[in-house]
């Protein structure tokens, strides 16, 4: 059946089964491939998007559950204040290796920063432990979140 959902501020009409995960609508129907497939079971975080600002695993989010909510993906996260700071910190701190999981890492980190301007190590563990990185960039992710938080408090 047909659904109209708001992604990155624009309405999109899609004709798929209601139980289709948002991930596949984004990637295969709309061609927005920045959001990644990792596990299909909310175990790895690669598919993380924001739904009304909340970090959400798109691989288990059915399209019929979204209704009027606003979906934000990595393609547009740079237009949010916390997203732009996180992206800059990621580049300044050379976080990325293969990069495949980083869309999801950035979405989780920017949701954290938007709701918590000065996260502690425990806050970072809570927000980021659902995101797996096989290249092991955890050390730098933690440091980059703190870096982004500093520019946050400085009003940067």
């Amino acid at each position: 059946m047909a659904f109209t959902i708001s992604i990155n501020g624009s309405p999109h009409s899609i004709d798929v089964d209601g139980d289709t995960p948002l991930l596949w609508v984004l990637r295969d129907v709309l061609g927005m491939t920045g959001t990644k497939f990792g596990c299909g079971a909310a175990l790895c975080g690669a598919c993380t998007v924001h739904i009304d600002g909340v970090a959400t695993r798109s691989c288990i989010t059915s399209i019929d559950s979204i209704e009027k909510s606003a979906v934000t993906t990595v393609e547009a996260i740079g237009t949010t204040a916390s997203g732009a700071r996180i992206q800059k910190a990621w580049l300044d701190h050379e976080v990325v290796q293969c990069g495949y999981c980083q869309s999801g890492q950035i979405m989780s980190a920017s949701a954290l920063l938007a709701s918590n301007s000065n996260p502690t190590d425990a806050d970072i563990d809570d927000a980021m432990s659902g995101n797996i990185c096989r290249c092991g960039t955890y050390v730098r992710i933690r440091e980059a979140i703190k870096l982004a938080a500093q520019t946050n408090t400085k009003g940067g």
Partner: protein
Amino acid sequence: MVDRIASRSNETSLSRRGFLASAAAFGGGLVLSLNLPFGQSEAAAPGEFGPNAFIRIGSDGQVVLTMPYVEMGQGTYTSIPMLIAEELEVNLKQVRLEHAPPNEKLYANPLLGVQATGNSNAMRGGWKPLREAGATARIMLVAAAAKRWSVDPKSCRAQDGEVIHDASGRRLKYGELAADAAQMAVPERVTLKRPEDFKLIGTPAKRLDVSGKVNGTARYGIDARPPGVKVATLAQSPAFGGRVMSLDDTAATAVKGVRQIVRLDDAVAVVADHMGAAKKGLAALKIEWDDGPHAGLSSETVARELEQATLGSGAVAQNIGDADKAIAEAAIRVEAAYHLPFLAHATMEPMNCTVHFRDGECEIWIGTQAIARVQTMAAEAAGLPPAKVIVHNHLLGGGFGRRLEADCAVRAVQIARHVEGPVKVVWTREEDIQHDMYRPYWFDRISAGLDGQGRPVAWKNRFAGPSVIARWLPPGFKDGLDPDSTEGAIDLVYDLPNFHVQFTRVEPPGIPTGFWRSVGPSHNVFVTESFVDELAATAKQDAVAYRRALLGKSPRAKAVLDLAAEKSGWGQALPKGRGRGVALQFAFGSYMAQVAEVEVSKDGNVRVHRVVCAMDCGTVVNPDTVQAQLQSGVIFGTTAALYGEITLKNGRVEQANFDTYQMLRMNEAPAIDVHIVKSAEPPGGMGETGTSLIVPAIANAIFAATGRRLRKMPVDSNVLKQPA
């Protein structure tokens, strides 16, 4: 492994005349072609020049390197341009990299030999030839400028992408000279910069490949979307070697968006408009499988077979003195048996391959460490000559050895042959883990003799497992041995006067094995460094001091051991339940020592708090990449030590997704300190060293904390649990 086979012969035959040629570029400019040591590319006839890398300087001054090494997170796309830019005297940003295509028209030369990125060989292989190529291009550009100005080339110099004649103040940009430079003679010899004159090498450089990786624009194989592409997912026989016995696809074909069901002998694929429909269709299939000849296979049967094999005679990998005699006469004898499990790679990007099979031609989109292998094997599966198979390489969402294989390309071609138009075949995570090509299971039977002071006088190791090389690169397996299976088991850094190591190749039935990050050393370093630790404990000596006393012939090993001990606070008291473990290796051309600090809880759970790495990897090209790769390797190995295990039951893999095949996560990641020993030696490998060494460092730390010696990985918390 692979590059060792290559470099042995390259060392003697490396003649610059044979390795560089120049030509005018299509559209004006200079093209230098060179041969990078890369697998067995010297398999070409002697004297035959088979270039596999090209440097093009265009009339816009842009330097483009087309090369066979791929970027999979290890930073190669930044460190390789540094080598060229250093000698060419250009800004790093002026150098751009392209994936080497197997059949792009501009580079009509077929790529010879094995085209693959693995075994930490990119920097080791490219170190000399790429600097030589940069210097050669610079000399030819200077010669072109000198000719145009009618001055002596010696009176000109190169700087920041220009040739400058100081006496007259004249200068010309490389782009203006590139076409003329192509007409200049390739110099007979070049002199490379001395390390103290390096401007780029050794200075941290920002990675060149990252901006697209933070905003979703980077394209991996799984992101390929040729026009009209359909998406397929698949179920392969759960038991290795099984077949489809019956298929009922009535419910699957009724799923909205499902277009086609493809039935193969041993797999079924659902082709759909999108992966959501394909997965839903797959779940609706009713497949009955014939489990085939390996239906009874279990991990225990594999282990038993290996244990048995070590009792017989194997191929002797290294023999010094008479180990049997020395052990028989020793004051103390120590014996142990070690097991290492099968491991999956679990790259974050699940296996995938997009194929458009059409009349007499096949086009492939994939991210691979071995593009030529993909081309060859896909051609075979398609029934086409390799030249009719076009392969587009992409960024890799993790390689770790998994993408050295072409099994997924073959499978995708088999499916695509039944599909009209392009089809992207995407493995679910469950299929990816249950149909990997696994790090082998290994078994070692090892013994040593100690003298009255506890010093080892003899060492004997008999181990059994498969030879990945024998399948992947058959000429590399000779007389029952290959250089990968034995790396880290022989040529130890320690003084061991009587030494015997033998290997028995045993291929487990049914289950496919492959290269896994840190390859041979991922097995051998765990065994040797655990066993050296056992010897120290038997001799009641400090683990660092014990090793140190055996390093007379290895000053570089001693230096990293001392540095790791110092930086880790070795010998200082720790709270109860905590312990430090040390491990030391020479592998991939680099020396490294690690000290891991762990905490073991009452219920036997292990937490790795801190890892100190001291490394001598020769000349450091990009220090930031060295640090990142070590952090990466340590996390990868810690995952293996704490969780990594693929088990077999009834011919099938028992693990399926990240709930049953666990990964280390942010809240469990240790602090990792990296200390680099300055060195002017050629660069050693970096991408894998951290992985092989951390496993014994953790096991030895657990021994220090609990007195329990773990001879089987991964860590079993039941063994470590304290009685209530």
